[in-house]
């Protein structure tokens, strides 16, 4: 087994501390084993750990060219995903970083427009420029690739808004130039400059009949890279590296601030004297409610989500320090969160069985998520689907609170595969020998909630309908990265 040489009780905080002292490879193995043992679990800790690890990977990377760096990140990402495939945020963060590197590299390349011929080759995997390039360049001479420069501004802007902390929805609207045919898919393959647009049927490709080998695979891309990048690698690689690192740092910052950003929308959605039903313990939801409580008086009904999360839920209501229950979280500020009743909220704690009974009195349901899928559905703590179904029966609006980092571009072919089963011992104790012998006990940890049961998503970008999520996916992930860990799903 990989080294846990640090000897601390392993959790997120310890892992982050150990990053500084450990060898990189040991850190990777360390995180893999932590993920496998679920010593780091749940979306946010996993995302933070992944981002920090990738930061180290980039920092330690012996720079040759961008293609190699992408390969390296993909390789590390693949291992992390294999360690814990159901923590979908790990893959999300890796994809964000990959996309960010691609953007930075392209920006870099465009600034250095001296070798436009190789530019045209290189930039074709980038969906935005490739489309514009092809459109404008239909059959034209290679010099016509100058519009790339124009395009690059948009991409830079897009990149900025992507990694911008404030993540204003305004900026995400801005960065879509009108004719750029963006890729509205959420289950696309990697590496292939796929048909992003209806125009691709007719567009002029550099070489007809097939995508040129130089752009169709990361290896090929890097070999093309070598020619153009090598001669100025020395000059620009340090800049690029610094930019990539600061990009990852921005992602980390985003992870830190995501709950506050979501909470800032709270007062638009929670009104005075409303009754809100929520479920399980979630930092995002708790902050959301606390923020609303600064101005409003309302009632919160908390379903305890027995048996996987009830202790944490009780703690959130009663104000006990959560850190003793969930040690992987102790590096963040959970302990400073005010319990809901102290903020002036009337809290009613109910058992999960009472959800349907109280639903008729509820004005809104606020759900936390484990992961959000690009079709608009979500994976949440077990019981969420029952709540959503009860809410739809009573026509009660269901609001889902989730950071954008939880939004995964993967399209699952069967949703059952996303649901994890936990320790049945928490339902029936193993001391109860006769019962354990005679029954089968299932303890699903998550539920899949289909998109039609959700009315609104509130992310750090604002509020969106479930049918709009594909758009956000597209803004945050590059199509060629979507299935980077799973070449089987390549076209």
């Amino acid at each position: 087994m990989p080294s846990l040489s640090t000897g601390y009780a392993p959790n997120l905080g310890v892992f982050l501390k150990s990053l500084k002292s450990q060898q990189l490879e040991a850190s990777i193995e360390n995180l893999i084993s932590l993920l496998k043992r679920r010593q780091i679990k749940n979306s946010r800790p996993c995302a933070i750990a992944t981002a920090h690890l990738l930061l180290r990977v980039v920092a330690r990377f012996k720079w040759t060219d961008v293609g190699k760096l992408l390969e390296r990140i993909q390789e590390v990402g693949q291992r992390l995903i294999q360690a814990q495939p159901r923590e979908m945020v790990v893959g999300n963060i890796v994809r964000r970083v990959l996309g960010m590197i691609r953007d930075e590299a392209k920006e870099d390349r465009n600034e250095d427009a001296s070798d436009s011929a190789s530019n045209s080759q290189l930039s074709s995997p980038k969906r935005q420029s490739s489309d514009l390039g092809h459109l404008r360049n239909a059959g034209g001479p290679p010099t016509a690739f100058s519009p790339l420069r124009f395009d690059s501004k948009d991409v830079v802007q897009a990149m900025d808004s992507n990694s911008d902390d404030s993540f204003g929805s305004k900026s995400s609207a801005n960065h879509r130039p009108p004719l750029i045919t963006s890729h509205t898919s959420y289950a696309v393959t990697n590496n292939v400059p796929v048909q992003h647009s209806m125009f691709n049927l007719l567009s002029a490709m550099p070489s007809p009949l097939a995508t040129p080998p130089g752009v169709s695979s990361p290896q090929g891309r890097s070999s093309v890279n070598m020619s153009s990048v090598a001669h100025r690698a020395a000059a620009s690689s340090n800049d690029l590296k610094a930019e990539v690192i600061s990009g990852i740092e921005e992602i980390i910052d985003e992870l830190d601030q995501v709950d506050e950003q979501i909470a800032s929308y709270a007062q638009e959605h929670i009104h005075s004297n409303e009754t809100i039903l929520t479920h399980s313990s979630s930092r995002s939801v708790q902050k959301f409610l606390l923020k609303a409580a600064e101005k409003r008086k309302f009632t919160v009904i908390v379903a305890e989500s027995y048996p996987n999360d009830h202790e944490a839920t009780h703690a959130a209501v009663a104000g006990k320090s959560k850190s003793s229950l969930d040690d992987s979280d102790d590096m963040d500020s959970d302990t400073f969160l005010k319990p809901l009743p102290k903020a002036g909220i009337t809290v009613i704690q109910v058992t999960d069985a009472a959800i349907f009974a109280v639903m008729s009195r509820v004005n809104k349901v606020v759900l936390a998520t484990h992961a959000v899928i690009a079709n608009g559905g979500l994976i949440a703590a077990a019981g969420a689907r029952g709540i959503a179904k009860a809410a739809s029966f009573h026509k009660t609006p269901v609001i889902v609170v989730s950071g954008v980092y939880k939004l995964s571009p993967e399209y699952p072919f069967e949703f059952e595969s996303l649901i994890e089963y936990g320790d049945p011992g928490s339902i029936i104790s193993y001391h109860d020998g006769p019962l354990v012998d005679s029954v089968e006990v299932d303890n699903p940890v998550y539920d899949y909630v289909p998109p039609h049961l959700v009315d609104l998503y509130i992310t750090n970008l604002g509020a969106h309908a479930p049918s709009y999520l594909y758009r956000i996916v597209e803004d945050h992930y590059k199509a060629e990265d979507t299935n980077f860990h799973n070449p089987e799903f390549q076209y």
Partner: protein
Amino acid sequence: MDDTASTTRKTSTISSPNYSAASPSFYEGSTTPPPLTGHPPGLNRMATVGNVPQSGAGGKSEAFDIVKTYHRLLAEDPELTMPVAAIEALIELLVQSRAVTVFETLDLVKTQSDYLKSRIPNSISLSAGTDLFQRYMISSLNPRSTGNFDAVRQHLLSNGRLFVSRAKAGRERIANYGRHFVRDGSVVLTHGGSRVVGALLSKAADASASGGNVRFNVIYVMNDARNSESKAVVSALRAKGVPVATIPEGAVGYAMGKVDLVMVGAEGVVENGGIISRLGTYQIGLLAKAADKPFYVAAESHKFVRLYPLDQFDLGFDQEVIKFTTEDEGEADEYGVKTPRVVERPEYFGAPDVPETPIEAVDYTPPGLVTALITEGGVLTPSAVSEELINVWW
């Protein structure tokens, strides 16, 4: 229709096209193609501006008839979809034309597209192709872009076969990706003769044959009016080793309980993400929704068409599916039922859509019934369709 090609300049004689009068017979002697019913009106304004500038070309151009070309292309290659055939026909038109200016060319393509659409009863699918072609030309000939006229024209003329092969490659990609939706042990319900669905299911069958762990069953909804096509699909699947059950259309509701997913093709995908597809798709969609089964549509993105049907009867052409008659009129057949006017043609499966085909009855399946669209660009939610179209049109 020689007169169409040999016309002279005729600028504003049909300045206010009357939609309801746009029947082929009305325009029999006219030189200007009529506007398409139900087509976005913005285009009709342009349609009146100019006309086919082929008169000067003489000789060769007189032989060109876009409708015949379209039918010939479809007949030649059974794998060709209607939008791609329309694009091919337009490329042949460009080959024939001597248009030298951008405007002339655009106008020629426009008028000929409209003419073609007016001569095909159900022009929804092919209009996806003609629209795409026109938008492509407009955006690549845009003065702001760098594409110059000769280069664009040359590109289009020389790559006709490439577009066809790309379209077919797109189908392969859909099949390759979509086959993952067919899981081990699942039961797939399908109907119609969609080539994409056929490719998808046979890919899935290949996966099971080559040792992949996918053993699936297919329930195929037989269509009496298209018996030979149904039989061809069924036997093709059975030949691949896929157990197929055939059920009549009336048994879809009965069978739905055993079904894990529904997979259908589409003739056109409309703006809101709904689909235009073989008559019977809508009811299958409704039954799948009622039984809470996923309803997937496999369609290439060149089938996306800018149309927003409000209901079944808003497709822009009359299908004569519902026709009220009494005894006196002698119209009703012996059962008093007027079945959709679809003529059984044994040669259909080899050569779809030859000119004499009466309207292939279609219906409109609203987006609420569609779980996801499997396109060559990935799996889309219905709401993503409008964005693809917006990207092309604006």
